[in-house]
């Protein structure tokens, strides 16, 4: 074998080895979806839950109540968790890459603050952007539309003025403050009961994921993630800065504009159903990066797999902790923070500057 063949072979071997990380976490995610059917406030053993699951698939529902909990509540929630975790991690990968900033995440542009304002407007004032809607659907719809306002403003501004990544981040933060101030004003004047529900929404929960809205989530996350993946080589070029990317044949402003819109749409779809689930979009990409490096061809699937697995496990803990227990947003940060620190210290390699 010639030296060149050996070099090429080694590159592919290393890539395959790193891809095992993605495969491992895809398997963990798939197993977790099934396992999570046995966990929750409704008491049913794992074996019974699995039997109920198999019964439903084979068409012979034995226990109506078991079937309701396992098939109608837990399964969509678990699948939703997987896709939400995957989508947020994917969004984080792309945002950190585009912004050249390890602190960027899907919410950096103010998506979550927009969503929260939309939700609060609906909860407290009964305001709905789409007049026909009311109740939960109005909240979701409001959150979705409001969360797209920041990216619309950023896109609008960038038509007149060339925005650097830092300028985009600052603009996002400015918009976030404006939205938060309105939201806070509304919350200060709110009654205790609405305040609690607003706060609960803010922290993030998967309890609203049902078979009815799951397809919406799945389609958004899948389609946008696949589109983003096709940009993987262009996004790699962006690591070396806008100027270099341009000399490599990439139009940095155009790519950034397109990706920001895509990530915002995906994040908006997720956030409007679940509220702000933190941590995974920021740290998920970094954890994957520590194991597979930053080449998007490997990083994207790895982060997606890790995000999916992590959020299902976090939600399982959230469910076990009771009806009024810890929301998944809290769990994910509570477990994820120390986990991240551990890996950061353990993996004694220089990953960032």
């Amino acid at each position: 074998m010639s030296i060149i063949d050996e070099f090429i072979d080694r590159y592919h071997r290393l890539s395959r080895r790193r891809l095992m990380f993605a495969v491992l976490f895809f398997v963990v995610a798939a197993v977790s979806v099934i396992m999570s059917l046995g966990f929750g406030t409704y008491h049913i053993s794992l074996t019974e839950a699995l039997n109920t699951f198999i019964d439903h698939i084979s068409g012979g529902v034995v226990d109506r109540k078991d079937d309701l909990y396992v098939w109608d509540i837990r399964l969509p929630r678990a699948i939703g968790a997987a896709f939400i975790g995957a989508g947020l991690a994917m969004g984080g990968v792309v945002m950190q890459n585009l912004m050249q900033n390890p602190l960027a995440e899907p919410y950096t542009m103010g998506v979550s603050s927009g969503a929260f304002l939309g939700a609060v407007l609906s909860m407290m004032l009964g305001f709905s952007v789409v007049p026909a809607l009311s109740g939960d659907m109005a909240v979701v719809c409001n959150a979705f539309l409001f969360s797209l306002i920041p990216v619309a403003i950023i896109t609008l501004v960038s038509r007149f003025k060339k925005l650097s990544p830092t300028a985009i981040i600052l603009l996002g933060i400015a918009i976030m403050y404006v939205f938060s101030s309105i939201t806070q004003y509304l919350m200060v004047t709110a009654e205790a009961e609405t305040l609690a529900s607003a706060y609960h929404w803010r922290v993030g929960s998967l309890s609203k994921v049902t078979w009815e809205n799951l397809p919406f989530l799945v389609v958004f996350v899948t389609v946008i993630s696949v589109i983003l993946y096709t940009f993987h080589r262009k996004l790699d070029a962006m690591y070396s800065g806008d100027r270099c990317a341009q000399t490599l044949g990439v139009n940095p402003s155009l790519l950034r504009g397109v990706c920001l819109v895509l990530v915002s749409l995906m994040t908006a779809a997720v956030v409007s159903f679940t509220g702000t689930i933190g941590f995974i979009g920021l740290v998920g990409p970094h954890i994957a990066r520590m194991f597979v490096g930053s080449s998007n061809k490997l990083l994207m699937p790895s982060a997606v797999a890790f995000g999916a697995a992590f959020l299902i496990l976090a939600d399982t803990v959230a469910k076990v902790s009771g009806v009024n227990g810890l929301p998944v947003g809290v769990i994910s940060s509570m477990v994820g923070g120390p986990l991240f620190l551990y890996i950061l210290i353990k993996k004694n390699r220089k990953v960032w500057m």
Partner: protein
Amino acid sequence: MKSISLKKRTSDKDQFAMDPDAEIDLEINSLSFAYGGPDSDFKVLSDVSLKIHGAQLVSILGPNGVGKSTFIHCLNKILEPTGGTVMVNDNDLSEITVKDLAKVMGYVPYTSSDNFPLSVTDTVLMGRHPHSKWGSIDDDLRVVHEMLTLIGITDLADRNFNELSAGQHQKVMLARGLAQEPRILFLDEPTSNLDVRFQLEITRMLKRLSRQKNMLVIMISHDINIAAKYSDNIIMLFDGGVYAVGRPQDVITSENISHVYEVGAQVITDNGRPHIVLVDDDDTDYDDDHNYHVLRTG
């Protein structure tokens, strides 16, 4: 600001491409650049006209802040000139898409950001992006290996770019520029972080490659002697324009150096090439015979 062209190419207007055997012609016609637009007071370049012909090594010299990098950025479309035109083999640069341009023009920047861990192989592989197609990347990896070997950094292939030293960064970025297989390669101080051996080796290699690959290499340099030793031609920038241009022996004269750099210089000839010795006319007595010392003690 010029908007990004998203229109489909019409069939009668061909995609910009360069015949690999064609001689390179770079024509710069009354190029001007000012940060903040044509009416701004912050003019950097005004009315620069040059014709660069053929595969060769060209060095750009000039004092700090004179606009050497700005000049290069106007030639590779990173900046849009506020006046004048740049023609690449009779094609107006402003009409060539970024994508097409990347197939013929490479750029090795002065600094490189390294916020995220990317392996050296993947970094150099980036240079293949303009030529990339769907499917196997084995052919691209072959080019990557060729360039890593050429620069002598195959041992760094699996290392992360952000773990390397400044000199190693430079070598990797150089390999990436070469992996792009451009017809015109711009380099912004490519050897500034390299030790003397590699300053010589890399510059010599650039000259050799210009012949072997039929490539025009244009580099910014602060090392007058290295530029004089290897360049086919030198462009000396001063005060917003070209102060002198031509063969090293015509440009590197003590008059030019003292005028442009405001420093005394004595020019000697080494192997037919000019070589400068800087003259310091400061006559302060620093008491060089004092007894301060640094000694090895072990």
